């Protein structure tokens, strides 16, 4: 079981090295790979809590925005350097997520999606409307670059992708641990999880807060990589796209969100026409993938391995039987 834990992280390391080599000749590849990495860094934790735990969150970009803004505001109001704001950028969204999670995470999937969507939009409204504090619609500009790696593309690439690789490794390690089994049990059936002593609400809140913390880190990276953050940078559309990336790539695989992120970014680069028109093609593509490969693109590659297509079996699952029916 634990033998293959490092495999996916290894695959990703090789991909990163490949990008580093190929990118020597095509410098635009670095920028693209950094974007993919940032999305993947948001997507992999979402893939864990959604794919394994059934937490359908549309607030991930909002958590990233909170992290980014935390850093940007500490810089613009108190002149704190990014080194000093890293911790607040992670902790503030994590705490926020922990505090709001209890009433939201007890909801069934669709309601949870709706509630997190509303939460994300509220965060957006707060950032764009508190003009004096957050710079309103203009956002905050002139942020210093990421410490150590500075403005070096290769440096940023290495940093972002290393973080992704670590996340993928942690995902795989977690999923095969007792805690991971507990998370899957929560997803399958909360009563089952409670019947073996899993404190469902606390466990979900904790994981939700951790993903929010990682999102906050991405917000920090984003803000200091671009030197700017605004209310439109990390918005609800990004949250929705992240969910698409997870599902399109494969929500049951640690590499699924990475593949999904690559698919999105490369499709965006290669599609003809203006960026505005891409939405039409994207939308259609998403519907097609959801329809034809509901387990995600990675399932096409991995179907021969252990995680097989989910066949329907006459076993009661939380989504089919309400508690009172099946007790």
């Amino acid at each position: 079981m634990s033998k293959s834990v490092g495999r996916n992280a290894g695959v990703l390391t090789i991909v990163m090295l490949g990008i580093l080599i190929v990118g020597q000749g095509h410098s635009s590849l670095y920028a693209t790979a950094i974007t993919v990495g940032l999305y993947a860094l948001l997507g992999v934790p979402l893939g864990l809590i959604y794919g394994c735990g059934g937490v359908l969150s549309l607030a991930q970009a909002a958590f990233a925005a909170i992290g980014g803004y935390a850093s940007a505001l500490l810089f613009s109001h108190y002149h704190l350097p990014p080194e000093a704001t890293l911790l607040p950028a992670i902790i503030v969204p994590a705490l926020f997520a922990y505090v709001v999670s209890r009433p939201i995470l007890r909801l069934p999937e669709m309601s949870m999606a709706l509630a997190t969507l509303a939460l994300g939009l509220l965060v957006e409204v707060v950032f764009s409307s508190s003009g004096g504090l957050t710079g309103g619609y203009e956002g905050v500009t002139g942020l210093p670059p990421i410490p150590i790696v500075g403005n070096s593309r290769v440096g940023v690439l290495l940093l972002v992708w290393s973080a992704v690789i670590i996340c993928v490794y942690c995902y795989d390690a977690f999923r095969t641990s007792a805690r991971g089994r507990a998370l899957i049990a929560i997803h399958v059936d909360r009563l089952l999880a409670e019947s073996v002593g899993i404190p469902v609400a606390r466990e979900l809140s904790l994981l939700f807060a951790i993903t929010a913390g990682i999102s906050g880190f991405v917000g920090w990276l984003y803000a200091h990589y671009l030197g700017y953050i605004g209310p439109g940078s990390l918005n609800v559309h990004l949250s929705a796209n992240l969910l698409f990336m997870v599902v399109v790539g494969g929500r049951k695989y640690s590499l699924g969100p990475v593949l999904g992120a690559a698919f999105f970014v490369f499709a965006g680069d290669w599609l003809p026409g203006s960026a505005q028109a891409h939405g039409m093609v994207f939308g259609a593509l998403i519907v097609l993938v959801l329809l034809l490969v509901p387990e995600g693109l990675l399932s096409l590659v991995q179907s021969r391995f252990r995680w097989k297509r989910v066949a329907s079996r006459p076993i009661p699952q939380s989504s089919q039987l309400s508690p009172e029916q099946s007790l």
Partner: protein
Amino acid sequence: MKIAARDLAVRFGGITALDGVDFELNRGEIVGLIGPNGAGKTTLFNCITGVVAPNAGSVVVDGADISNHRFDLRVHLGISRTFQTPRVNAHGTVLEAVMLGFNPIVKKPLFGSFFGSRSVRKAEADMESRAHNLISELGITTDPTKRAGDLSLGALRLVEVARALAAGPHYLLLDEPAAGIDENDQGVLANVIRKAAKDGIGVLIVEHNVPFVADLCGRLIALVQGRIAASGEPSGVLSDPHFVRAYLGDSNAG
């Protein structure tokens, strides 16, 4: 050392599911809970395990009042249960299903779980071999690597019992464990239950299969419409006129 429920009452809207039930379960004892459909047997389970909060009454375990404890906390006090409809992850293996049962007794450090620390991996390997042992000890012949969703109902119920036993409970509550399973599996189940009781576990069994419980249990409790209609020696309960009328009248009609 016992579970003692006092004066439990549960109402669902207009339905009175339990109406002043007093009940005790000692460690090492096998007690059968019988009664017609809708008598409130599962509801009594739910009250004891904390799935349903009673409208009145208290639950005391080993002298401590746990009436306000959540379901998952009570498991840590040594109360394990199964469900009338088996609940498993259909996509996981039998082994994983049983390993889930160890949850209350394994350490699950947060960072160790994420980074695959040595101690977590060792605990994992440990648990895996203990699950294998438990499965073979209980006489379950199902292949542990089989998908839980592919099992027969009988095998599934046995896996659930194994999962409930994995945590090393003091009290084991089984909701219709013999319903819909073949004689062979019933035999395995009876052995498992006897062995558990011999190990000092108090077992409470809800069952419609009266010969099965009468044979197994030292004491029967007959629940009718949320009240205890009769209790005591199996032979006495089964010949109690009040209970016979309720039960046989019910099953004749149905």
